C-alpha cells in the first residue's frame, strides 16, 4: 500500500501543498475563539450572578422535602409524658381532622403507647422508648432526664446532646426528647383530595359516600346529599377545586380571547402592510412599523399597565397577549400575503371582477388556512405564556400558583395545578395540531 510515506515523499508533498500544512492562523483559531469565548462568558456570568455562592448557600436538604411534598403528606403525632401518664396529641390543622385516631397509633395502657411507622415500631413509656426497625432495636432511656440511647446505636439513629433522633427514610422519623416523642409518618398520595375534614363526608369509605348520596337521609336538611357532596368537594378547603378550575378557565380565556382578537385586528392591517395588495409604499411601511412596535413592547409592559388600569384579573392578561400578538401575527400575515400565488389573482381579475371580489376569491382562499394555522400556533404558545403573565398579577392560575408556592407548605397543591396546566397545554396542542393538519390539506393526513 502506497500510504506509508517515505520522508522524501512527505517532504515532497509538503513543498507541493504548503497551504495544507500552514493553515492560516485565522482559520485555526476560530474553534478556540468560540470555545474560549464561551468559557469566558460562563465565567463572567458565574461572577456576575455569584452562582457559586448562591448554589453553595442553597438549602438543598429542603429540596428533597419539598419534592416529597408534591406527592405525599405526613401525619405528626406527638407523645407527651405527663407525670406517669402519656398522651397522644396532633397539630391543630392536620389531615386526619379534629379527632384523629389512626390505627397505627395504639394506647396500650395508661403509660404505654405503640406507634407503627411503616416497618418500624415505637413503644413508648415515660421512662423507656423502644424502637424496632430493620431488624435492630434501639432502647432510649428517659429516666435520667436526658434521653440516652443504649449502645450499640443502630445506623438509622443518632444520639444528640439532649435528644435522640431516628430516621426511617421516606416513611418517617422520630425525635425523642425528655418530655415528648415527636413522630413524623409520611404517606404517599394526596390527603383529603375529595373532602376536607370539615365535611360530613370526611373519613367515610367510597361505598358509604355513594350510598349516602343515592339513598341516605339528608345530612343537611336544606340540601340534598348530592348537592352537599358536590359543594364540599368543590369548596374543599385544602384543595380549593372550584377556585383552581375557575382560575384555570381564566388562563385559558386569556390565551383564547387574546389570540382571537389579535388575529382579527392583524387581519385587515396585514392587507395594508402587504406590498402586493396595497399599492401605497407609505401605508405598507406604516403598517409594518406598527407591527414591529407592537412586537417590541414586551407583553409584560402591557400586562402591568392594564393591571393598574383595570385591576388584577383576566383583562390585563388578554390585553398583554392581544397587543403583542397583533404585531407578531400581523407580520406573519403580511408575509403570507406577499408570498401568494399571483396566478390565481390574475385569473379572477381576468374575468373582470371588482377589486373586493379579487381579494375575496383570488387571495383569501390561499391565505386563510395559513392565517388560521398560525393563529393556532400562537394559541398553543399563549396558553403557556398566559400562566406566567397571570403570575405577574393578571390573575388566572399563574397567580394562584405563586400564592401556593409562597408558603412552601402547599407543594401538593402546586403539583395538582401543574398537572392541570400540563393537561390543558397538551389538549390544546393536540386540538390545534389536528386542526392545523386539516387546514394544511388532506394530502398530509
Amino acid at each position, binding site marked *: *500500500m502506497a*500510504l506509508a510515506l517515505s520522508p522524501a515523499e512527505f517532504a515532497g*508533498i509538503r513543498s507541493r501543498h504548503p497551504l495544507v500544512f500552514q493553515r492560516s492562523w485565522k482559520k485555526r483559531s476560530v474553534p478556540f475563539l468560540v470555545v474560549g469565548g464561551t468559557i469566558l462568558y460562563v465565567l463572567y456570568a458565574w461572577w456576575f450572578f455569584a452562582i457559586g455562592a448562591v448554589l453553595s448557600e442553597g438549602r438543598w436538604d429542603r429540596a428533597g422535602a419539598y419534592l416529597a411534598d408534591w406527592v405525599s403528606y405526613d401525619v405528626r403525632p406527638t407523645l407527651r409524658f405527663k407525670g406517669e401518664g402519656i398522651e397522644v396529641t396532633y397539630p391543630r390543622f392536620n389531615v386526619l381532622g379534629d379527632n384523629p385516631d389512626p390505627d397505627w397509633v395504639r394506647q396500650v395502657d395508661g403509660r404505654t403507647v405503640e406507634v407503627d411507622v411503616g416497618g418500624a415500631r415505637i413503644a413508648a413509656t415515660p421512662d423507656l422508648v423502644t424502637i424496632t426497625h430493620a431488624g435492630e432495636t434501639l432502647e432510649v432511656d428517659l429516666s435520667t432526664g436526658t434521653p440516652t440511647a443504649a449502645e450499640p446505636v443502630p445506623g438509622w439513629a443518632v444520639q444528640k446532646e439532649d435528644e435522640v433522633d431516628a430516621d426511617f427514610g421516606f416513611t418517617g422519623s422520630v425525635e425523642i426528647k425528655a418530655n415528648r416523642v415527636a413522630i413524623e409518618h409520611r404517606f404517599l398520595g394526596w390527603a383529603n383530595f375529595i373532602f376536607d375534614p370539615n365535611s360530613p363526608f370526611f373519613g367515610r369509605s367510597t361505598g358509604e359516600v355513594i350510598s349516602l348520596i343515592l339513598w341516605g337521609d339528608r345530612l343537611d336538611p336544606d340540601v340534598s346529599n348530592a348537592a352537599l357532596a358536590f359543594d364540599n368537594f368543590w369548596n374543599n378547603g385544602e384543595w380549593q377545586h372550584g377556585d383552581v378550575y375557575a382560575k384555570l378557565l381564566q388562563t385559558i380565556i386569556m390565551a383564547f380571547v387574546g389570540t382571537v382578537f389579535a388575529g382579527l385586528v392583524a387581519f385587515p392591517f396585514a392587507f395594508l402592510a402587504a406590498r402586493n395588495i396595497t399599492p401605497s409604499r407609505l401605508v405598507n411601511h406604516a403598517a409594518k412599523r406598527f407591527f414591529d412596535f407592537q412586537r417590541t413592547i414586551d407583553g409584560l409592559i402591557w400586562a402591568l399597565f392594564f393591571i393598574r388600569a383595570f385591576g388584577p384579573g383576566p383583562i390585563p392578561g388578554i390585553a398583554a397577549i392581544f397587543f403583542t400578538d397583533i404585531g407578531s401575527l400581523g407580520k406573519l400575515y403580511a408575509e403570507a400575503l406577499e408570498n401568494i400565488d399571483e396566478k390565481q389573482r390574475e385569473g379572477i381579475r381576468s374575468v373582470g371582477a371588482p377589486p373586493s371580489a379579487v381579494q375575496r376569491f383570488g387571495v383569501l382562499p390561499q391565505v386563510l388556512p395559513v392565517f388560521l394555522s398560525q393563529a393556532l400556533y400562537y394559541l398553543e404558545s399563549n396558553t403557556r405564556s398566559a400562566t406566567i403573565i397571570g403570575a405577574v398579577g393578571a390573575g388566572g392560575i399563574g397567580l394562584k400558583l405563586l400564592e401556593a408556592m409562597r408558603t412552601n407548605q402547599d407543594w401538593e397543591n402546586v403539583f395538582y395545578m401543574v398537572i392541570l396546566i400540563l393537561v390543558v397545554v397538551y389538549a390544546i396542542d393536540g386540538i390545534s395540531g389536528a386542526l392545523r393538519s386539516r387546514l394544511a390539506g388532506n394530502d398530509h393526513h
Partner: protein
Amino acid sequence: MLAFKGVTKRFGGKTAVDDISLEIPKGQMVGVIGRSGAGKSTLLRMINRLAETTDGSIVVEGVDVTQLKGAALRSWQADCAMIFQQFNLVPRLDVLTNVMLGRLNRRSTAASLFKIFSDEERALAIAALERLGLAETALQRAGTLSGGQQQRVAIARALMQQPRVILADEPIASLDPRNAQIVMESLRDINRREGITVITNLHTLDTARAYCTRIVGMAAGRVVFDGPAHALTEAAAREIYGANGMEEAFSEAITSTSLRFPTPAAHAAPALATA
C-alpha cells in the same frame, strides 16, 4: 478470500437476495451486473453490514462478518471501504478533511471529535488525492465539486481506510461517460497496484466487461452467471437482463445521464466543463 455461504435477505415477504454462495479470492476485480432490483446493491451492502443478512454467512479470512458487533464490526467496516452512487461525502467540509475521515476508525475518537489531525495524516490524504488527480481541490468544500470529482474524493477516502476490500455500489451511475471512465480506471488501478479486492455493482454490461476480470450476473436475487468476462455470451446476458432488458444492458446512456438519477444542477454544470 471472501466467501458467501447461502446468503439470503428478505424484506418482509420479498426476497431480495436468495441463497447466494460465492467465493471471491483476494485481489480479484469483480463486477456484479444485473437489472435494477436484482439484489446487487443489497448483496454489496450486506458485506460491510449497511444491511443485515436474514440468513447465511459471509466469511472473510475465517471470520463470519455477519455476526460481528460493536468495535469488531466497525473495524471490519473500516477494512472494506464502500463507494456510493451518490458519493456520500460531507458536502460542507473541505475535501482534505473528507479524505481524512476515512481514518475515523483507526484513530482516537476524542482527537477526531475535535478535528485534530496530524501532518502525517494530511500528507497521506494529499498523496491519495494526488493519485486521483485532485490535490489542487484539497481545501475546497466537497459540495462545490462536480459529481465525478466527488466520486474520486470518495475513492481517495476509501484509500485512506487502507482497506482489504473496496465495495463500489453503482459508482458511475450518476456520472457522465468521461468521469465514469476516470472512476473505473482508478478502481482498476487500485486493484492492480495494491492487490485490493474490488467488488463493484455495475448497471451495464460493457463497463463490466471492460474493467472486471470476473463477472457475476444476478437476476431476481440469484446468481445466474459467474465467470470470466470473456465467457459472458449473449445468451447469458439475456438471462441476466431478460428479453426486453438487453437495450438497458448495453446502453451507456442510461447509466451516465441524469435521466434516472437526477443530480443537482450545481454538480452537473462543472461535470460538463471537465468532459
